[in-house]
């Protein structure tokens, strides 16, 4: 069975959940080979997780400086492995970096790439939701080694233990791969709340929240639910909440179990970032707000009355 290369997303010594999803998706296309790009010794630490989700091989592309340069080294290593292994496909996570790696790789391999894939069939047909999710497109790569860039949650990760043979990969970076040097990484903490794109529950506020100060009401309901806090573009543009929390076409796309929209009208721009959420709850004063077309449970009312009451009720139930 042909290999399928899976680029391992990892940070601070842990494999990200999307990697287990990519390995699961790879199994329907061939035999997954996990590709770990990191400092020496990184791959060995991930072996248990990668084996559990089906990696027959684990390529360890390790060197002291491979993570010191932006994007290009990972594309070079994947291209090198693709040349050696002639894989059936290459899977990468649809993060900002993943899309850029895929772009460079597509040029190097002269291969087709499909990005923001939300479902991938064993026949290589990839589903994408385009134009803010208004249109569902199914596509196939027709040239070269298919490169699929998958969104988180596209497949449910299921274990299927495999051998996970560790294979060392010699890393010798091209001059062109070392032109953009990473000098520093600064974490701007979202505090104790979960990451917006990883969270099971997201509570977002919109223009209706009215002020930065009033966002406390959104945060309080989020905290009662153990949720991440998001904001609509209108709220961000009005200066109510920082841009990094923006959900929508030009912000983040989230697909949590529960999305709570407080004072958000539901413009296309916003819907693009949240309409694949499993359950949607909306609170808005305007009974005609388009957000209600999406909501599984809608409340026509004042968010400053409804949200605090809901937070109190949640805390009561949790004891």
């Amino acid at each position, binding site marked *: 069975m042909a290999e399928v290369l899976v680029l391992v997303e990892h940070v601070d010594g842990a494999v990200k959940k999307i990697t287990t999803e990519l390995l699961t998706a790879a199994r329907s296309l061939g035999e997954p080979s996990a590709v770990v790009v990191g400092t020496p010794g990184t791959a060995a630490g991930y072996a248990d997780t990668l084996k559990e989700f089906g990696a027959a091989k684990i390529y360890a592309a390790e060197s002291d400086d491979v993570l010191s340069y*932006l994007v*290009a080294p990972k*594309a070079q290593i994947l291209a090198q492995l693709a040349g050696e292994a002639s894989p059936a496909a290459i899977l990468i996570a649809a*993060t*900002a970096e993943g*899309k*850029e*790696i895929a*772009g*460079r790789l597509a*040029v190097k391999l*002269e291969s087709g*790439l*499909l*990005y923001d894939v939300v479902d991938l069939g064993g026949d290589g047909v990839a589903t994408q939701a*385009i*134009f803010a999710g*208004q*249109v*569902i*497109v*199914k*596509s*196939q790569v*027709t040239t070269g080694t298919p490169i699929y860039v998958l969104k988180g949650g596209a497949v449910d990760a299921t274990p299927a233990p495999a051998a996970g043979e560790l294979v060392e990969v010699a890393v010798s970076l091209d001059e*062109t791969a070392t*032109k*953009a*040097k*990473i*000098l*520093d*990484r*600064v*974490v*701007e903490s*979202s505090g104790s709340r979960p990451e*917006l*794109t990883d969270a099971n529950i997201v509570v977002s506020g919109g223009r209706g929240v009215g002020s930065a100060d009033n966002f406390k009401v959104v945060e309080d309901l989020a905290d009662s639910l153990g949720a991440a806090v998001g904001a609509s573009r209108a709220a961000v543009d009005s200066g109510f909440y920082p*841009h*990094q929390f923006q959900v929508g*076409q030009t912000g*983040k796309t989230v697909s949590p179990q529960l999305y709570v929209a407080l004072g958000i009208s539901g413009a296309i*721009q916003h819907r693009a970032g949240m309409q694949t959420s499993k*359950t949607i709850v909306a609170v808005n004063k305007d*009974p005609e707000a388009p957000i209600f*077309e*999406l*909501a599984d*449970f809608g*409340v*026509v009312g*004042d968010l400053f009355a*409804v*949200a605090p*009451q*809901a937070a109190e*009720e*949640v805390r009561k*139930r949790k004891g």
Partner: protein
Amino acid sequence: MNIVVLVKQVPDSGTERSLRADDKTVERDSASLVINEMDEYAIEEALKVKEAVGGTVTILTMGPDKATESIRKALSMGPDAAVHVNDPALHGSDALATSKVLAKALQGLEWDLVISGAESTDGRAAAMASMLSERLGVAGLTGARKLTVDGSTLTIERQLEDGYQVVEAQTPAIVSVWDTINEPRYPSFKGIMAAKKKPVDTKSLADLGVDAGEVGLGAATSKVVDAAPRPPRQAGQKVTDEGDAGSKLVAYLAAEKIV
């Protein structure tokens, strides 16, 4: 510093967009077409660099005749000139073919810095800057929320989910920017009038030395096998708050086993 800004004309992302029924390419004929939003931030950043260190700003657009409107709009913000790559054979080009054509066009221009939006609102591949830096063998400083120019040294703050990276490179380089980087200026009346007289150099594929067979729908590296509007999400129950909606909401969540 000579700067080229990549500008793409796209259907307005605030409207309903669709694919053409015949060849599944983006429907442009009936769409309201605008400058890709992120590109306005790229133009603004280029103008700021020019104001700080001198040089020129040139707009580079690939697109059909209609794209002229977006080019004039871009020029009205202040850039000096534009190059419009326009050829009927380009219809249906994918990102790979587009990057091939833009790379050729860039090779015909003198520049130290290329600035693009981090992604377009129609394609959202967010890969053009990376594809171009790969093709041209220059540094790619992608996803910037801040750009600092010091002689030939460029430093960006690359926006991440949970913070940022500081990344440095030497010119020539390609920088892509998010909408967090600046606040684009509005064209002034003077700017709008001046834009009408600014040079727009139109290039065909033959001018660029690109074979028509390498681009367009026929050369696409993937094909659409099916496209359909998303089935509308079924709206659920809607209650009007009578003082107990917060409790009702949580009761609903509990019934759904979410809390």
